[in-house]
């Protein structure tokens, strides 16, 4: 597989290990540089470059009167519950750096906290520690290979990423997907939602202090992963949902496996609800913590369970249905207060609703093709290649050059376990996308952290962050 760059005129400008050269006369001192807080000018840092390599650089927390982004960080850009501190004593403030290597930040997220005792006055999230250049990589992969790239964005729910990408490509192509393929897609993505929420409840419980939740959550998830491995070949990052349908049909005996999953996950959910819902320590740590108002959620683009816990009644599966999900009956749980407890309750109920959808798919799975017949899009069955010259040619062209999508621009969105996952796909008629932009839900959640965390104490940071379920692969791509 060749990886021809888009245009070879410029070379990659990766940072080298030599310390960058200073400005013209090197006289720009640190305070002066901070005052010109415009665009970071490379070459104005102190000469001991290696030792300061993990410093914040342009992301440092400036003194309050100099911080141009203070309004947004304090969350008063939007109608908020923030209480303005009348007396601000600079000496009593301490800046604490949390992350990027940290057991409780759910990945490589870095938070700058300005603390007043144990209360947080300012939060600045710094991201980019997992930036993989996926949008650039997508421009070098054909449409059939593109699934392997996008599936690694939100690595806790890879099938949702693949579904969004496949829907966007199919929109450009204009192909219809057979009903069995649509039902299989819904089955797999709803199972993925359950698996993702199980990891969430495992890490959430562990961060709150209920350490055994970690073991229970992963144990139940193993049943779902065993099913995924049986169907797609991999436990994670499956590359199963492809433009045109799915990669392979469901194997024999899949109904018994799903029944097994119902037993394990269903009884597990009952146990966890008993374990946590009335536990006074759990309630103390989660009630009223990390409140997000509905206006804030809409202004910052927070969607999914985090917004529904605040009372925003919007679910993409109901509002803009895709892949035949409108035939299945399910409810969308809503919270009232927008605090951590509500986010927990909403997700636990969502797992039950997903089980309900899986039950309906199990009962009503239509027979038929698992992918579209159009041989220009999906490869022919392997044994046809021995019999038919045309099948061989199709196979060859699909796996070397790939199919060409007509020119156009499309935005498709699905409801991933974290919120609205959208892909903006621009094609200029070639076999590779011209531009793929992934609108990921965790990016908006991380952006909205300051409004939730200001005025909370440090342990509440952990609880709130865990309840929001950001996935850093989603944030940084």
């Amino acid at each position, binding site marked *: 597989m060749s990886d021809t760059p888009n245009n070879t005129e410029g070379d990659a400008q990766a940072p080298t290990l030599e310390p960058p050269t200073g400005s013209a006369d090197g006289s720009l001192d640190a305070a002066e540089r901070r005052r010109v807080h415009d665009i*970071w000018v490379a070459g104005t840092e102190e000469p001991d470059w290696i030792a300061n390599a993990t410093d914040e650089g342009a992301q440092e927390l400036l003194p309050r009167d100099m911080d141009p982004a203070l309004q947004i960080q304090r969350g008063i850009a939007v109608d908020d519950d923030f209480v303005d501190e009348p007396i601000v004593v600079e000496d009593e403030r301490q800046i604490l750096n949390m992350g990027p290597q940290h057991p409780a930040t759910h990945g490589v997220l870095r938070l700058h906290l300005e603390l007043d005792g144990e209360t947080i006055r300012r939060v600045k999230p710094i991201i*980019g520690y997992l930036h993989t250049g996926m949008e*650039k990589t997508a*421009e070098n992969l054909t449409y059939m290979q593109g699934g392997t790239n996008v599936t690694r964005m939100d690595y806790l729910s890879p099938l949702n990423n693949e579904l969004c990408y496949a829907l966007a490509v199919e929109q450009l192509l204009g192909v219809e997907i057979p009903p069995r393929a649509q039902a299989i897609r819904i089955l797999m993505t709803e199972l993925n939602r359950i698996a993702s929420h199980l990891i969430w409840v495992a890490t959430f419980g562990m961060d709150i202090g209920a350490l055994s939740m970690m073991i229970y959550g992963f144990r139940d998830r193993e049943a779902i992963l065993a099913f995924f491995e049986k169907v797609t070949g991999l436990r994670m990052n499956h590359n199963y949902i492809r433009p045109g349908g799915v990669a392979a049909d469901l194997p024999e005996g899949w109904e018994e496996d799903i029944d097994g999953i119902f037993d394990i996950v269903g009884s597990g959910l009952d146990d966890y609800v008993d374990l946590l819902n009335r536990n006074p320590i759990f309630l103390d740590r989660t009630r009223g913590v990390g409140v997000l108002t509905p206006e804030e959620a809409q*202004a910052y683009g927070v969607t999914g369970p985090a917004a529904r816990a605040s009372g925003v009644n919007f679910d993409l599966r109901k509002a803009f249905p895709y892949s035949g999900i409108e035939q299945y009956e399910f409810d969308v749980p809503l919270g009232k207060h927008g605090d951590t407890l509500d986010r927990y309750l909403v997700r636990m109920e969502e797992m039950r609703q997903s089980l309900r959808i899986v039950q309906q798919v199990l009962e009503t799975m239509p027979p038929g093709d698992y992918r579209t017949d159009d041989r220009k899009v999906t490869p022919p069955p392997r044994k046809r290649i021995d019999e038919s010259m045309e099948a061989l040619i199709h196979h060859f062209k699909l796996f070397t050059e790939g199919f060409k999508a007509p020119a156009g621009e499309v935005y*498709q969105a699905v409801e991933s376990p974290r919120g609205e996952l959208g892909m903006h796909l621009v094609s200029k008629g070639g076999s590779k996308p011209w531009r793929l932009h992934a609108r990921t839900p965790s990016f908006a959640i991380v952006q909205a952290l300051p409004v939730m965390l200001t005025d909370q104490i440090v342990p509440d940071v952990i609880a709130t962050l865990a309840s929001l379920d950001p996935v850093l692969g989603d944030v940084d791509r």
Partner: protein
Amino acid sequence: MTEETTAQEEPQETDEAAEETIPRVLPDDPILARLAEPFPNVVFTSFEPLAGARQDTAIVSRGELIAFVEAVKDAGFETFIDVCSVDHLNRKPRYDVVINLLSMQHTKRLIVKVGVPGDDPTVQSISPIYAGANFYEREVWDLMGIVFEGHPDLTRIVLPDEWEGHPLRKDYSVGSVPVQFKGSHKSS
């Protein structure tokens, strides 16, 4: 893909003289029609996809962007979804900044596109209107190099601070390391 242009008609389709104003066809959706009335230069297109929301796009010019986005917010598009950018390379204007908005009350999406020229890649920031645009505009600056005027903190966000260049531009190569096989003396 079907695309219906519901904005200004092509001049050659009418019989009227060139000096007379061409009657403008507003989008058939009532909310968008009310939105389009005070903005005669905005081009609306829409198409009905196979799955998901109807895709309505409004193409505005840089000068009208802030006024239009404020009107969009007043029209009920309260939820901010996305700001991204596309580098068309051989087109004038070179870049497109794409703003994606959602109205939960009307169950509607709207995409606002602004053309940004390559030699002057600046555009007004919409973060005073939608607070959520903050990080997204920083990412567009970081990866595509489009400057947002009025943004409170336009610094790099996903790349290290000292990075030079803007990787998502089409004239920036993907930066791959060629595979080197043991024993071969030329790079592949």
